């Protein structure tokens, strides 16, 4: 038992600390740069330790996952087997769909594959239990990355860089409920603002005309414009055009990229970051594509 401490006055201390925390919180949310720098400094100090620990604990982690992730692994195996069987059965349809998507993208002159990108490896989830729908990747500001850049896989948009440290970055996935992206429907050319739903889909919440003619399976791409994400990155397909909406349409998009089985991703460099003369900038040149 700890000693009673009649002389202590926790209430004023607690109020003072709460006021300090709220002040810091408000300043940080408003974008105070020194606070970001402080946090980044703490993470950068820990970075070498984390890299060593990652390497040293690989066997432990494998054993740990074998013990505590076995059921999940079995379930994933079953799910993948089912998925494979389903995909084999639908290969003809998928081929046709892919052709249709490629045709649609070509028709509107999309140049998605020509974007300047940096290849990154997924390390896992960020430390701690704060938040979901985020992953950590093995590249940071040393590789020329900055916050807000689009992260894509071969299938399309995956998310954007939320925090960039020297050697690691955190990606907020497109399914995160706080993820917002300007999108364009390829056929109807309607533009809107899509938000993650937290369940593997996005919902266009604003911008779509109530009388817009939106087809099921219509391809959706990023709209660019004022957004930091480049235009014409495939986002997904419409799975619910919300045809019966009276005032505001909430079109649901199935994300093209499969977020369950990712290992490597591409970070799309902003137009100003890309080297127009194709000169090696020395920023992790081997990673660049």
């Amino acid at each position, binding site marked *: 038992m700890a000693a009673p401490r009649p002389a202590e006055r926790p209430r004023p201390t*607690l109020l003072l600390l709460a006021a300090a925390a709220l002040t810091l919180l408000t300043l940080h949310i408003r974008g105070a740069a020194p606070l970001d720098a402080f946090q980044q400094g703490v993470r950068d100090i820990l970075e070498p330790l984390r890299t060593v620990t990652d390497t040293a604990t690989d066997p432990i*982690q494998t054993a*740990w996952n074998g013990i505590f992730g076995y059921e999940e692994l079995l379930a994933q195996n079953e799910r993948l087997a089912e998925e494979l069987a389903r995909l084999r059965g639908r290969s003809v349809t998928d081929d046709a769909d892919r052709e249709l998507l490629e045709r649609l993208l070509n028709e509107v002159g999309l140049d998605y594959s020509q974007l300047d990108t940096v290849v990154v490896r997924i390390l896992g989830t960020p430390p701690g239990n704060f938040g979901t729908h985020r992953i950590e990747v093995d590249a940071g500001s040393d590789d020329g990355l900055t916050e807000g850049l689009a992260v894509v896989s071969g299938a399309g948009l995956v998310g954007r860089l939320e925090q960039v440290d020297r050697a690691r970055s955190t990606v907020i996935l497109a399914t995160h409920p706080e993820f917002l992206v300007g999108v364009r429907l390829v056929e109807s050319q309607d533009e809107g603002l899509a938000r993650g739903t937290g369940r593997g889909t996005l919902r266009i919440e604003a911008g779509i005309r109530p009388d817009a003619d939106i087809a099921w399976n219509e391809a959706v791409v990023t709209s660019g414009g004022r957004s930091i994400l480049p235009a014409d990155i495939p986002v997904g397909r419409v799975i619910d055009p919300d045809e019966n909406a009276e005032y505001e349409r909430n079109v649901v998009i199935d994300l093209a990229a499969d977020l369950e089985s990712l290992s490597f991703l591409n970070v799309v460099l902003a137009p100003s970051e890309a080297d127009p003369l194709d000169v090696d900038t020395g920023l992790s040149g081997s990673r660049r594509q």
Partner: protein
Amino acid sequence: MTPRLRVLLVLVTAVALEGTLLDELRIGGVSVELLLLVSVLTGYHGGPERGAITAFFAGLLHDSIVGAPLGLHALVYPPMAVAVSSLELRMLRSTPVTDGLAVLAAVAAGQGLASAVGMLFGVLGSSTDEFVRQAILAGILTAVVSAPVNRVVRWAATGGLPGTIELRRGGS
């Protein structure tokens, strides 16, 4: 070594462990909340004031490694430390089981409260069910590792001296 230095040493060790080794060992995607555990245990052994101050800095460090806005966990941890300290004074009898349950409850409450504050400030958007699952699992995992951490924090907060000196009448 002064108590402040000892607490600082414990905090630095805790942040290093939470950001490295404990991050690798997850169950159901949830890891041990070591800094929150250090906070509540400092409140338990060191008293509400020392607990609150330690918890504030633990919260700032936690914010930095998990990428939360600076101040979010620093807002939540001190009240948890004070609450545990206050509860400890009111408990008539404590056993390892009740202490373990108290740690579980404190960590689950702290984790849940942090998620709630995150939602309030618009930096979290996941479902409430997921937050509840995370909080309970984090509470259980943290309670499991609390025994060795308890010894270290008691050393840091009290210098290894007994918390109370019980005076008994001799003779019988």
